[in-house]
């Protein structure tokens, strides 16, 4: 089986460790170069099923701002991020909203809730 080494920059924290994942076909044969376990976890996920946290805004009625910042409670599949952002551009909520309130439950059936990132009255 062919062994491939992929160099990855970790995106978990601002340190940005540069590490390596060795792949034996689809099997992960080794992970090295990351300074913390979160980096190793990221690398394993990145070569199998990459995920990203989404931050965007939705429209809000009756608030002191026209937009409410929102965040996905956990990371979404990377390939669905744009589609989720497009979907949220049509969502509208009503003030008042508290940080952590669910703005969109189980977005696109991906099992992840989109929640408010701030209080808005």
């Amino acid at each position, binding site marked *: 089986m062919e062994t491939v080494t992929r160099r990855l*920059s*970790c*995106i*978990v*924290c*601002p340190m*940005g460790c*540069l590490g390596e994942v060795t792949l034996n076909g689809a099997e992960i044969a080794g992970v090295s170069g990351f300074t913390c376990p979160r980096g190793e976890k990221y690398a394993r996920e990145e070569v199998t099923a990459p995920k*990203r*946290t*989404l*931050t*965007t*805004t939705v*429209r809000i009625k009756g608030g*002191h*701002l*026209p*937009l409410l*910042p929102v*965040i996905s409670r956990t990371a979404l599949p*990377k390939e669905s*991020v*744009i589609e989720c*952002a*497009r979907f949220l*551009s049509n969502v509208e909520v009503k003030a008042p909203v508290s*940080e952590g309130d669910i703005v969109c439950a189980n977005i696109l059936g991906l099992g992840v809730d989109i929640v408010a*990132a*701030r*209080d808005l009255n």
Partner: protein
Amino acid sequence: MVNTYDVVIIGGGPAGMAAALSARKTGAERVLIIERDRELGGILQQCIHNGFGLHRFKEELTGPGYAGRYIKMVKEDRNIDVMLDTMVLNIESDKIIFAVNPAQGMIEIHAKAVIFTMGCRERTRGAIRIAGERPAGVFTAGAAQRMVNMEGYLPGKKVVILGSGDIGLIMARRMTLEGTKVQAVLELMPYSNGLTRNVVQCLEDFDIPLHLSHTILKVHGKERVTGVTCAKVDDNRCVIPGSEFDIECDCLLLSVGLIPENELSQQLNIDMDALTSGPIVDQFRQTSMPGFFAAGNVVHVHDLVDFVSQEGEIAGAAAAQYANAELSAAEKTLKVSGINGVRTVVPQRISIADGQAQPVRLFMRVAQTEQRVTLCIESAGEMIQSRKLPIAKPGEMIVVELPADAAARCQDQITVSLKREV
């Protein structure tokens, strides 16, 4: 109407809020935050991406989330007053502040100590002198960020971004998620000044081209931007003739640097550092004028908000002590300067009072990217402390803690330099 406070803080962003809380904790009876925006939080409110607060709160928060935690703490303290929509016009050297707002008109405020936490502003097109007409559609990245994330306007549909610092990178992703086509990000330097994680998740994820060692020569269009002429630059950042090409766009975002906002400090003739563009401060963040303190991006541009909050706390505590006449005047001042590759050091002075040296944390930036260097802190020919750095980048602040015993060994002058390994 005259208002009297122990500590008055100018700017209600992360530095100002941390300063207010810390001043109260250290014994200031009455504290006032003056903020010109409609709410507290400063620039954090428009930074809706996550990644804030890993040091401070041990979790990854959005900008509004980080601000929200501080706003809650500020609101819970009845002895911290907040004036919103309020612009400070002038400060006298005897700490009389004149401010104005729509509700109260002109206000006179008397303070025992003042803390500057005004943050910074962006460099504009004028600062980098791009040729062309003055069409609509040229914005600084931060102005566009506020429009997109808070006001509900999209500044363009086809965008070119000049500058690959973190704000430029974050805006490339943000505009893409809002349905805008980001044609390219251009960077004058041969490397991105942003964090690697932002290059990966803001550009590579969306296949946005990053042209390193490139600049913009001309903006096209008369009423509205129609495109830009770009070119490659050589090692001396000079345009390489014949390398010009055009990119079509209706919007140009500039992410070309930040400048601490010090009009108020300069009106008072406070000593400034020409390299940081902020006031010269000691380890308590006291400026050259007794009783005037400064913290956060108004002193030097930070990478992480966590450090901004920390600096606010230092200034807040010292300002409260000053207001209560508990901050001893310096008997001796040590001058700290960066040489040989170290561009800036904060604090620029270390005050020694009561014969006691205290631990001091130094924040430094290098002039250019260097590999395998040793950071040397020396005084009167003696090596006080050193640290090996595998890599040092201008975009990443270096923090070194100088313990009390090391600070005590320092003479009048302290230098911080880089030495290449041989």
